[in-house]
């Protein structure tokens, strides 16, 4: 199944150090177009670091990363965003001083031409643009069922909704690849189900490629076609979800005794 897909994102031999800590050790992976790809592993195994390397936040010190055949490692984060990769963060990184709507509008940033003069001549210049983008944003709000909190301040809405707003912000950038860092942490069963639904809907509707980090194994096995398992910065397994996480090495380092392994 995986082989049939044309690769969209390719990491070749990626390494990253933090003051002597070798957080990523020569990781190579290839993600196919339209795939939902899981990234799992114990805490501190380098999952977030890999994602940060892809999105340009901590550029890899070794190896390279290609997106749609173009090298993106070494580009500044905002350039990578412009090239079509959007992401969410493990610790919610919304702009706390803004309303939900403004946060989501921020997702449209790469399509907008902000400048002070446009703001000054709002009625003649910026207003049309704002409203055009507003339509797009409302579509996403609709998709993710955020209508009720649209005008709330983000820091007073519950964490689950914040995560959803983050997803909305990422989707507004009309990415071709979506990177989700633990989108379901801190959610109960019901909320998890909603989130899964949204991710699947978005992926179907927009033909996205999704890279997802998650510790909820039920979710990972249910939606991911393939997973990569990291431990201590190195790959210990890769392949179809169920197979990879029943690998004895993975069970020992990550899953633990039988309960979740199924």
């Amino acid at each position, binding site marked *: 199944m995986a082989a049939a897909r044309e690769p969209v994102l390719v990491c070749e031999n990626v390494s990253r150090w933090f003051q002597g800590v070798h957080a990523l050790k020569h990781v190579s992976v290839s993600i196919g177009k339209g795939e939902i790809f899981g990234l799992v592993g114990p805490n501190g195994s380098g999952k977030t670091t890999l994602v940060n390397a892809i999105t340009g936040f901590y550029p890899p010190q070794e190896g390279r990363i290609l997106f749609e055949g173009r090298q993106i490692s070494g580009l500044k984060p905002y350039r990578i965003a412009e090239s079509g990769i959007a992401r969410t963060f493990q610790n919610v990184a919304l702009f706390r001083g803004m309303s939900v709507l403004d946060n989501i509008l921020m997702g449209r940033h790469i399509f907008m031409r902000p400048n002070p003069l446009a703001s000054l001549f709002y009625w003649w210049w910026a207003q049309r643009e704002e409203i055009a983008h507003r339509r797009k944003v409302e579509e996403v709000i609709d998709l993710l069922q955020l209508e009720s909190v649209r005008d709330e301040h983000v820091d007073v809405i519950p964490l*689950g909704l914040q995560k959803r707003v983050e997803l909305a912000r990422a989707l507004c950038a009309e990415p071709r690849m979506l990177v989700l860092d633990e989108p379901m942490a801190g959610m109960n069963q019901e909320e998890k189900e909603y989130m899964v639904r949204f991710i699947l809907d978005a992926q179907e509707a927009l033909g996205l490629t999704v890279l997802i980090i998650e510790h909820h194994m039920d979710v990972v096995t*249910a939606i991911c076609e393939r997973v990569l398992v990291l431990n201590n910065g190195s790959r210990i397994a890769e392949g179809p979800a169920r197979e990879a996480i029943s690998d004895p090495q993975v069970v020992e380092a990550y899953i633990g005794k039988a309960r979740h392994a199924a």
Partner: protein
Amino acid sequence: MPRLALSNVEVVYDKVFLAIKGVSLEVGEGDMVALLGANGAGKSTTLKTISGLLGPERGAVTRGEVSFGEADLLPLGAPDRVASGLVHVLEGRRIFGHLTPDENLVAAFRAGGSAARLNELRERVYAYFPRLKERMRSKAGYLSGGEQQMLAIGRALMTEPKLIMLDEPSLGLSPLLVQEIFAIIREINSQEGVSVLLVEQNASAALEIVHSAYLIENGHIVMNGTAEVLKQNPDVQEFYLGGTGKVNYHEVKHYRRRKRWLA
């Protein structure tokens, strides 16, 4: 007399936003109780009410009583509440990032305690969490998520609590660590007789270890009972435990029936 009792507590944020209303709950001596609920239901608010940490968030208790053993907690400041024997492990870990793990532990030890007692407690924490001992000299801010969670719990134990309140201890931890941490919580409860009030999204794991649980929705307590009873409740099963069987995520409906207790 229960160890901790809340009766009819109401909390308002920022003078205008009513977050919980009429919450009553009890935790008995040596009990292990879970507080379950959806996002934004008011779980963290309830814990902060007990530990006295609402102030900095512009929250205030506008009605109700909180008692801990004999003592009325509401007039006490947060540190005095800790001194009286309760401790709160905050959501999101919030360890002292610029200190080493060892210093994190030292900082939490009560002022004026003897050095011998300090070492004893510290060794006990390191016994529970050997991983912390390995990393005791690096900056805590750079520990991995699981290690920080261990440190947060260890730090709380340094205050020699009679009641420990944990706010989502499993958040973001690997399945293996969740099991470990829950095992340690159970051990702390059974070996040292510390009462536990546990807020958890991972309801199935929580209901495995607690004796009883409360369900909070929209600032109200909507249900309570022993773990066994709750596990059998169909609503709890559907909304918190992922149904009776395995969930098929590709099939989950967009719009589900409303929860019965809200009707």
